[in-house]
């Protein structure tokens, strides 16, 4: 397998402009002859489907939800970064680029990140034009807040519902195209297989989740925008339906999987309450603008109500360890610091797995009204879930799986190692390196969907002949349909005793313990032994009532869990082979004396891209070396 990143020549600030000019175009009257499939309707998928539809291509868009408006981008709370420099505080495209490369612990591709920073500016303009109600100041201009890993205020927001508002903007643009007949929407459809002929992506096979019908859809290009695979961990801030099936099917058809072990554990989530827990809820990072994180200095104080612990007995450990970034230290660092204090026995709450996020200083300084204005809906949500009032007692938070920086490997054009298969948003590996900064996921999803894919997909289409789509009954399509139907039959045929959720939970425990915030060789090897056992037990003992010809939620879940049981193994394998610590990947063997991640740039300044070798065979690890010409490799410091 050859990994050609296709980074354009020239100085970094000119690459994208030059490339846009060099790419081929499709004549407006020819566009309707091309069909593009978009799987997923989150920020990346909806933005791409709408934009490609506007350009005149025939688009089919698929999502597993009942409506494209429900994709999990909707749950992003805090904001979206853009290098507008409206605050006059020294921001620039280069600074956003610099912060993102550094924030990703020097494991992202410079050219992609620079382009992301460049188009960030257009995203805000585009969203405002769509009617996204961003927060504004009294003068009517846009407001900003700060996010982790940055010393400028560049985050645009819509209360605590930024993701919702950006997604609804993209959804409305998409629905406009649906109304005009440019885009055909397929809700409650789940992709089961990718159709590949002579190494080129030619279509997909889906299952209609209401009727169970398995059908082929052919196209001239396929875009996967199906999000991350963090639900491999079972408990995560992802929506329950988020899954890795689409990218995993593509991986098995020859798309390389980039950096599968790079997982983001978000520091501020509501702690677990018991075994019944089905998911975890994030509390936006923006809360760290005004909330102070602490635990008691003494173990014996942990059981006391927070108010009874005097100021001098509190350890504001982020402010102590990282004085220049304080409570806004990046996510990987903040999460690890929380784990450390809890490991020392200084965690709070019933389980001891929690730290305080305290607003009392901010309320004293700004008044409760101002705090309510900024974070009211988040405070309400916290109270609904925990039954505690955060205006009166500090919030309790703990890290949880939130995002996967890894994903299908893509070149500068966002095309995978399978020609004709593009991968956008969280589903690809491209822009965040080993750690994503806050408010950058929304930026990347929309950048890929609105401003990158419409050019690069067109460039690809221009190299194919219009009207050369696969016939719907092509043998490769029939074969892919048969594989999808077989999987359904196999799952229903097990007839065991345990529920799909049981196996998902078991997998999650292994992943969280051995491939979570701290990883080491012995643990990863143990996990690599345990996961195949769970998988075997799953295929021997899973029970799915009902049939495949109806709406069957157990069947849907079982199909996803079957894939998680394989994805988890690749995550552990990648974590084992990356013998260094970087960003969210913390190998305990590689740390500085004060417990910070210790990179090995000599041996690991590269992307690991895994190639599938068939069932039962170990995949092959390929390497794309990373060059840092503009942001020089340095130890990341937020002290």
């Amino acid at each position, binding site marked *: 397998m050859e990994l050609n990143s296709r980074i354009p020549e020239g100085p970094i600030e000119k690459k994208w402009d030059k490339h846009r000019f060099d790419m081929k175009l499709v004549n407006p009257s020819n566009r309707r002859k091309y069909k593009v499939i978009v799987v997923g309707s989150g920020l990346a998928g909806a933005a791409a489907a*709408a*934009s490609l539809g*506007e350009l005149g291509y025939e688009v089919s868009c698929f999502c597993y*939800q*009942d*409506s494209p*408006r*429900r994709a*999990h981008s*909707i*749950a992003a709370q805090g904001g979206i970064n853009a290098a*507008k420099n409206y605050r006059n505080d020294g921001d620039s495209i280069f600074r956003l680029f610099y912060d993102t490369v550094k924030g990703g612990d020097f494991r992202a591709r410079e050219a992609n990140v620079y382009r992301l920073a460049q188009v960030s500016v*257009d995203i*805000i*303009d585009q969203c*405002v034009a*769509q*009617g996204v*109600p961003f*927060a*504004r*100041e009294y*003068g*009517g*201009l*846009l407001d900003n807040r700060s996010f982790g890993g940055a010393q400028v205020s560049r985050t645009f927001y819509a*209360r605590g519902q930024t993701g*919702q*508002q950006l997604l609804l903007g993209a959804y*409305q*643009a998409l*629905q*406009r195209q*649906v*109304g005009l007949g440019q885009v055909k*929407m397929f*809700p409650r459809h789940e992709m089961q297989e990718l159709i590949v002929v002579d190494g080129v992506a030619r279509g997909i096979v889906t299952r209609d989740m*209401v009727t169970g019908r398995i059908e082929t859809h052919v196209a001239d290009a396929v875009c996967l925008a199906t999000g991350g695979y963090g639900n491999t961990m079972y408990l995560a801030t992802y*929506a*329950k339906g988020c899954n890795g099936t689409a990218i995993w099917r593509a991986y098995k058809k020859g798309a390389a999987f980039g950096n599968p072990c790079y997982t983001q554990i978000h520091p501020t989530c509501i702690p677990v*309450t*018991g075994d*019944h*827990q*089905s998911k975890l*809820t994030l509390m936006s990072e923006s809360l760290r603008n005004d909330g102070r994180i602490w635990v008691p200095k003494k173990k014996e104080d942990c059981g006391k109500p927070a108010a009874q612990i005097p100021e001098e007995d509190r350890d504001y450990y982020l402010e102590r360890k990282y004085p220049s970034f304080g409570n806004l230290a990046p996510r990987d660092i903040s999460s690890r610091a929380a784990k450390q204090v809890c490991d020392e026995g200084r965690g709070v709450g019933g389980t001891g797995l929690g730290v305080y996020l305290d607003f009392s200083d901010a309320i004293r300084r700004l008044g409760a009204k101002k705090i309510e204005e900024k974070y009211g809906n988040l405070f309400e*949500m916290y109270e*609904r*879930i925990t039954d505690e009032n955060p205006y009166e007692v500090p919030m309790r938070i703990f890290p949880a799986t939130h995002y996967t920086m890894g994903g299908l490997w893509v070149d500068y054009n966002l095309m995978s190692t399978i020609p004709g298969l593009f991968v956008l948003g969280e589903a690809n590996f491209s822009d965040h390196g080993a750690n994503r900064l806050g408010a950058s996921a929304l930026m990347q999803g929309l950048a890929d969907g*609105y401003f990158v894919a*419409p050019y690069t997909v067109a460039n690809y289409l221009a190299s194919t002949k219009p009207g050369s789509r696969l016939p719907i009954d092509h043998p490769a399509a029939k074969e892919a349909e048969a594989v999808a139907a077989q999987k359904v039959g196999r799952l229903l045929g097990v007839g065991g005793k345990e*529920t799909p*959720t*049981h196996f998902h939970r078991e997998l999650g425990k292994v992943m969280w313990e051995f491939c979570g915030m701290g990883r080491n060789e012995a643990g990863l090897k143990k996990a690599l032994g345990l996961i195949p056992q769970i998988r075997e037990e799953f295929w021997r003992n899973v*029970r799915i*009532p009902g049939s495949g010809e*109806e*709406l069957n*939620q*157990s069947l849907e879940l079982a199909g996803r869990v079957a894939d998680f049981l394989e994805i988890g193994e690749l995550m552990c394998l990648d974590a084992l082979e990356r013998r260094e610590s970087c960003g969210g990947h913390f190998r305990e063997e590689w740390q500085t004396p004060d417990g910070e991640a210790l990179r090995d740039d000599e041996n690991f300044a590269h992307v690991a891209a895994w190639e599938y070798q068939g069932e039962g065979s170990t995949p092959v690890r390929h390497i794309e070396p990373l060059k840092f010409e503009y942001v020089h490799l340095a130890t990341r410091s937020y002290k």
Partner: protein
Amino acid sequence: MEKHLNLTLHVWRQKNAQAEGAFAEYPARHISTEMSFLEMLDVVNEELIRKGEDPIAFDHDCREGICGTCGCVVKGRPHGPKERTTSCQLHMRSFEDGDHITIEPWRAEAFPVIKDLIVDRGAFDRIIAAGGFITAPTGTPQDANALPVPKQNADLAMDAAACIGCGACVAACPNASAMLFVSAKVSQLGLLPQGQPERYTRVRDMVARMDAEGFGSCTNHGECEAVCPKGITMENIARMNRDFIKASLLYRPEVAAGGAG
């Protein structure tokens, strides 16, 4: 503090859109008050699966009250007894030991049942497709700060934009009207300067689609506002009605514009 409850559920079971539905009774034992309502249903479903019975189908996704996927009528009230709370964020501490809980799907002609508690809300998507947008194709529009928006308008627009499209308003309305949903979008876009060019065509097109989908009319019961988990107010309906009247008065058939070339 965590307590445990024993409950009896009366759940609407319906195999598919064509089948007749009926209530079925299920015990829910040793339910922690720390669980969410949907986690309670998960527990009941796990037991049903182990017994080889068909689990209760219910829609859900984000489980943090923002995607709008979940929603069932709990004890006669859409999303259940707690104000401004979606079914997924409703916690079992809102119930008492020994409670009987009826659980039904949204009931409205425009929302046909697909299975058990799952309904088809595609009508909402079609209403948005009819006009619930600002035409702003992807490109390079003017700078975001070129057009200031008074803070009050931005805030009111955001209040309306908070709608999650769950459909509780329709389920609560004795007329199964979708006026709260439609008016929230009409208000949001109509309050912003970017939404002015299409302000009156938008309201006409969306209302026409709403009527065609089989939603009823608004007769000011206010049930929609009472159950809305996001606090969308009836002020939006008033705003939509004003725009709709104006749109009807201003309406002129489109003049064919010749494209000289």
